[in-house]
């Protein structure tokens, strides 16, 4: 155990922890930008600097471990000035289009600029240094003008997805994030999982499919479970005007945390596809009470009300059961549907009809 003080508060804690961890455990807020709890800390954005008594330089709280007798100030004048300067440097090279930026309202840079009352300096390179929407990936919108070089995307791809698509090229003012050796994301073997987007604190990486559809505060989030594979990832559906407009990671998801795959994160647009069946349909011969024929007008679809369609089904089930017995009816329930729905199919086959002819595509 070691004893330290943070902003005058005496704290006993374990050696090996970082200043940021100890501060957090004790309810002391230190701002961060490149740091994320799921990723290994790099200390490169300098937002979390603190002053350690006796030290010549300010220390990055996310990577500096505590030692016995350490005296830390997280809010000294020097610290505040330094953080402001850091933000100014970032904003000096950042486009000023927060008004129309897609992530306005959920941008960590915007929040910090607000907290620290940082105005955009008159010097620096504003405007567009890089092409906007520069990558053809159908899901990820890339705008490196908004990149603050925190490298979270690099780490998310390397440490969560383990795919190593992103890297850093050049140095100094020219420093930039690149996919592979300066290729497109897909050429750099991107799997379009969107992890890098989920961890990007600004609008540098955003979602192409719902670009420009809603502000964060206009969206209702509904936590649910993915409808594709058996891993059972959870995420939030983003809803605006009774329409699903996107998916976002929910950090509390039991199986997957922030991680999702391309189908879970970006395979949602089938929900509102114009092919969706919106009304019951029956073949015309059923309505006209004529003999079944698989061609021509008797086989045409007719849209009906629910009562009509449901009564036809019930009548046909009864007819089959009366004519050839319960075991000539078959039920294919669904591995895509709810437990509750599968239970009801089992009950329908067994209780109502009296057959065990029920199965689903587990085998296929």
């Amino acid at each position: 155990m070691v004893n330290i003080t943070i902003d005058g508060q005496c704290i006993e804690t374990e050696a090996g922890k970082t200043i940021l961890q100890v501060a957090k455990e004790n309810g002391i807020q230190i701002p961060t930008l490149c740091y994320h709890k799921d990723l290994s800390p790099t200390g490169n954005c300098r937002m979390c600097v603190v002053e350690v008594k006796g030290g010549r330089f300010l220390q990055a709280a996310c990577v500096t471990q505590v030692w016995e007798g350490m005296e830390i100030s997280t809010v000294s004048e020097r610290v505040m000035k330094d953080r402001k300067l850091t933000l100014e440097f970032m904003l000096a090279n950042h486009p000023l289009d927060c008004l129309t930026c897609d992530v306005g309202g959920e941008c960590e840079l915007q929040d910090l600029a607000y907290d620290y009352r940082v105005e955009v300096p008159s010097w620096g390179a504003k405007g567009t240094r890089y092409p906007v929407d520069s990558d053809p990936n159908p899901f990820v919108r890339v705008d490196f003008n908004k990149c603050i070089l925190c490298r979270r995307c690099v780490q998310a791809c390397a440490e969560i997805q383990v795919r190593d698509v992103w890297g850093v090229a050049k140095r100094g003012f020219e420093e930039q994030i690149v996919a592979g050796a300066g290729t497109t994301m897909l050429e750099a073997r991107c799997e379009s999982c969107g992890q890098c987007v989920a961890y990007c604190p600004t609008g540098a990486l955003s979602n192409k499919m719902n670009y420009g559809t809603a502000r964060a505060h206009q969206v209702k989030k509904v936590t649910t479970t993915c409808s594709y594979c058996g891993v059972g990832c959870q995420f939030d559906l983003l809803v605006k005007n009774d329409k699903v407009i996107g998916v976002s990671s929910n950090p509390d998801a039991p199986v997957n945390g922030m991680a999702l795959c391309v189908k879970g994160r970006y395979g949602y647009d089938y929900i509102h596809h114009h092919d969706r069946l919106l009304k019951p349909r029956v073949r015309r011969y059923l309505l006209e009470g004529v003999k079944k024929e698989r061609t021509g007008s008797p086989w045409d679809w007719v849209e009906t009300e629910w009562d009509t369609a449901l009564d036809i089904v019930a009548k046909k089930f009864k007819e089959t059961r009366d004519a050839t017995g319960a075991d000539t009816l078959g039920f294919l329930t669904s591995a895509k549907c709810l437990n509750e729905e599968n239970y009801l199919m089992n009950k329908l086959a067994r209780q109502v009809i009296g057959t065990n002819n029920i199965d689903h595509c587990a085998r296929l």
Partner: protein
Amino acid sequence: MSNSMDDVAKEAKCFLIIGSNTTEQHPVFGTMLRRAVRFRGAKLVVADPRKIDITEFATLHIRQRPGTDIPLINGLMYIILEKGWEDKAFVAERTENFDEFKATVMNYPPDKVAEITGIPVEKLYEAAEIIAMNSPMAVIWAMGITQHIVGVRNVMSLANLQMLLGNMGKPGSGVNPLRGQNNVQGACDMGGLPNVYPAYQPVTSDEAREKFAKAWGLDSGPMTVDGGTVRGLSSTVGLTVTEMMPGILEGKIKSLYVLGEDPVMSDPDTKHIRHALETLDFLVLQEIFPSETSVYADVLLPGVSFAEKTGTFTNTERRVQMVNKAIKPLGDARPDWWITAEIAKRTLFLLSSFDKDDKEEERRKINMDALWAKWDYRDTSEIMSEINALTPSYGGITHARLLKGERLQWPCPTTEHPGTPILHTKQFTRGKGKFMAIDHVPPAELPDDDYPMVMSTGRVLYHWHGGQMTRRAKGLMQVYGEALVELNPMDAERLGVNGKKLLRITSRRGSIVAEAWITDRVPPGMVYANFHFPAASANELTQAALDPVAKIPEYKVTAVKVELVKE
């Protein structure tokens, strides 16, 4: 899965992935395994004919010929026994039938196994050493193991291996089949199978039948009237999906109610399936899209997507999770549970009311006062209460608990029970684990002069099953917009396939034309095709050769011939 994904990924010292293309089929679990290899130094042996993505992370990749998993696993166990690497205490205390099992394994010496599987002897030794020396080891598989005529025997072989190494009932070990569909586990748990009620209570057991008869308001006891299917619950095991389809052609099935499935795309031998569906008297299909199967439907009922309803799914590790309604059902579509309940109510009304020419004894008599006889559910939480009452392993899994954020894996018998992340910690369901003596049976259809190559089928990262959903997702189609057939460069050269070219793949049952993807992912002599696209679905070619027990079709081995389509 006997263990949970997190446990396997965090605790296993070694993984054996056999017959699972984990990073494409269960992508997020795939990334957990990659992390374990990269950041924790876990060992990974991949046994797969194809050079799938996860092999990049493998300590060792061995490429058995399709359909030779049993000799491979027996061969590995031979080496383990030869070297004395088995967990002797576990074998002695927790298992039985070891001697008979060992006698069979001794028929699989490395030389012979190398010849059958095509894996060199040194690699067999290397693989055996890695999996035996790094304990706990978790076996992970999927359809690559089960979609064979020996699917069940393959699974038993893997259970043998894990018992031999003592890799059962402890963290980071176990037998871990990955379930494909989001709720295939739940569909099985809920009695969506021809031989069992919910929670695998057999329909042939008098006790189980009496329990459900009583709950659902039916006469208990054996049924007697007219062929025995009238009064109570049937004790005859029903037909599986792979039996129903041929059953239609034999006149055994006349009417079919299909909920959210697409047999034309997902069942073997498409031509045969189309023919069967055409023969039906009546097909009612409940779907969200006009699928390929809807062409044959008499009635098409619009269900809803997962975003439009509330209820639960159960994932591959037995974890029950909430699905929450985010938007109103589109148009006149209705939640699937509502539709099924309406059909049940109306059918029940007709079946139980008098018709002048009805025979009295043919009426379905249900005592509607019985506790769970009714069908007037207001929402799915009421259905869940009924499930809680009748399904012991789900006894304590209520919507209320899940909504409070509790994390529950079944078995969870009571509302106080915390759920069960790892199965078989103290003993197996049947007491002692029984070793099974398993011999090799070659695939049903092997390559010959007319059909000299082997085709295996499966899915790709960007699509899902019959593709009804993913073919309607714009971005996914942009990345992967048509069926590609994987072909080895050596075969490509032999066939004169160079660049973007079309292949005609023909089996004894049908033929498809699809673009070639020339890649060493497949070994020479093998092609790999998917069933996401109706224009070139691999199931036109597959056959309904079934595992005798599980009735799973042998999708992973079909004899085909491959030709270049001349322009």
